[in-house]
């Protein structure tokens, strides 16, 4: 203020010196294929497909864990306790080296490596994340008073109807918060798919860091990219969780 109207900014900014932007971000133009957006798009696809898959599989596992059939309960418990204690990297590497290379599982794309490993990565992420979804939903089921299921049985609903119509809808509503955490963790966990060469964001980041000097900037760009993906998810689900809360 004291310096009067003729004073110019003391430090050059991208606004005052457009050429600076070109110097700093110049390296990005080397990454047209795969591009930054393209890599994040793969991350989004990995996240979305794995989220849908693990919600379905995790819900089925939770249903098994509360089922009256001992064999199903046993399977559900064993699955969760084994899978959630194995590092994700090991699971993803197993889908690629074990399933694909040794057992020849190709998930419908034996010749297209890009598609094959993408699908295998989704499979691994679903298998892993479902264990956490299952436990979140099971804790939600435990918040539903037993009287709800009893009243449902008393009007003649079958076990699966009681679960589908009464218990799970209430359980889901009470675990949207914990499920948001699982979903955010999943988004970040997709970076493990880089291990088997899926061209998502982390793989591109690794490549860029190897080739460029601006390591901190590259890190910041990718960190920002993940925050852009996860923050709205968290905020939206937080809002939804409040809106759908079951009043007792």
């Amino acid at each position: 203020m004291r310096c009067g109207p003729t004073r110019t900014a003391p430090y050059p900014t991208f606004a005052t010196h457009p050429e600076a932007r070109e110097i700093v971000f110049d390296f990005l133009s080397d990454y047209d294929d795969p591009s930054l957006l393209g890599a994040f798009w793969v991350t989004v696809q990995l996240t979305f497909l794995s989220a849908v898959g693990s919600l379905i599989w995790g819900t089925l596992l939770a249903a098994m864990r509360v089922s009256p059939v001992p064999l199903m309960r046993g399977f559900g418990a064993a699955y969760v306790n084994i899978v959630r204690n194995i590092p994700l990297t090991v699971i993803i590497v197993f889908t690629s080296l074990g399933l694909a290379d040794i057992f020849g599982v190709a998930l419908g794309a034996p010749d297209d490596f890009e598609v094959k490993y993408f699908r295998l990565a989704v499979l691994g992420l679903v298998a892993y994340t479902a264990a956490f979804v299952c436990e979140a939903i099971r804790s939600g089921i435990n918040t539903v008073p037993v009287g709800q299921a009893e009243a449902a049985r008393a009007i003649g609903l079958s076990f699966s109807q009681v679960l589908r119509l009464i218990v799970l809808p209430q359980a889901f509503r009470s675990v949207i918060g914990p499920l948001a955490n699982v979903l955010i963790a999943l988004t970040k966990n997709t970076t493990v798919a880089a291990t088997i060469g899926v061209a998502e964001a982390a793989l591109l980041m690794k490549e860029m860091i190897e080739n460029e000097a601006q390591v901190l900037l590259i890190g910041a760009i990718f960190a920002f990219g993940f925050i852009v993906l996860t923050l709205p998810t968290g905020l939206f689900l937080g809002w939804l969780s409040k809106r759908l809360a079951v009043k007792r």
Partner: protein
Amino acid sequence: MTEVSVAKEDRAANGELVVLKSVNKHFGALHVLQDIDLTIARGEVVVVIGPSGSGKSTLCRTINRLETIDSGSITIDGKPLPAEGKALARLRADVGMVFQSFNLFAHKTVLENVMLGQIKVRKVDKAKAEEKARKLLDRVGVASQADKYPAQLSGGQQQRVAIARALAMDPKVMLFDEPTSALDPEMINEVLEVMQQLARDGMTMIVVTHEMGFARSAANRVVFMADGRIVEEAVPDQFFSNPRSDRAKDFLSKILHH
């Protein structure tokens, strides 16, 4: 005594609807139901009374098989209770149940609570189910609350909705497990009135309650339970004014002082 035999003749004429024969049930070492023999005729209203922990709730719950039994048999309208699966679910629909804690489906509106069983169990189409639900809600006096959620209703209103929900299945018999015990005193009567009307309309009812006014005015018979056994059965007036067993005398002296 003559009153008792009149009641028995009535029962034979109307036919037996619920028959328990030598029913036994344990919870671990606890023998909750001991050789229970109980027959309830079509249209009969039976009040079950007894100290806390005597097995009244368990008795109700075995009748629609929310609890299994260890030995003996239970038949509803001549059909034995199936072990599990579809047949059991269908039978449960024939036995309406009203709980002490209402247990309305918390994530559904009052109207949806009363429609759900009709649609999913009786396979009634939606429009018909809604029409019937509204009629029943009107009958129990909560028609104006149809679009609210259970948590927005008073206890008395919730319990009346629970009665409507059970009635929507056209049950052959209704079980009430202490339906007014969780209610504030000023709401007890609105629920009892609905139950009294139901009794007058000829519904077969098994009611666990300590409401003597209801027992005297609506019940054909009082069954007194203690320690998992049926200790005494009598018509209400006789039971309340002239109990035969010491357990019943002792119990009545305690509740009458309240």
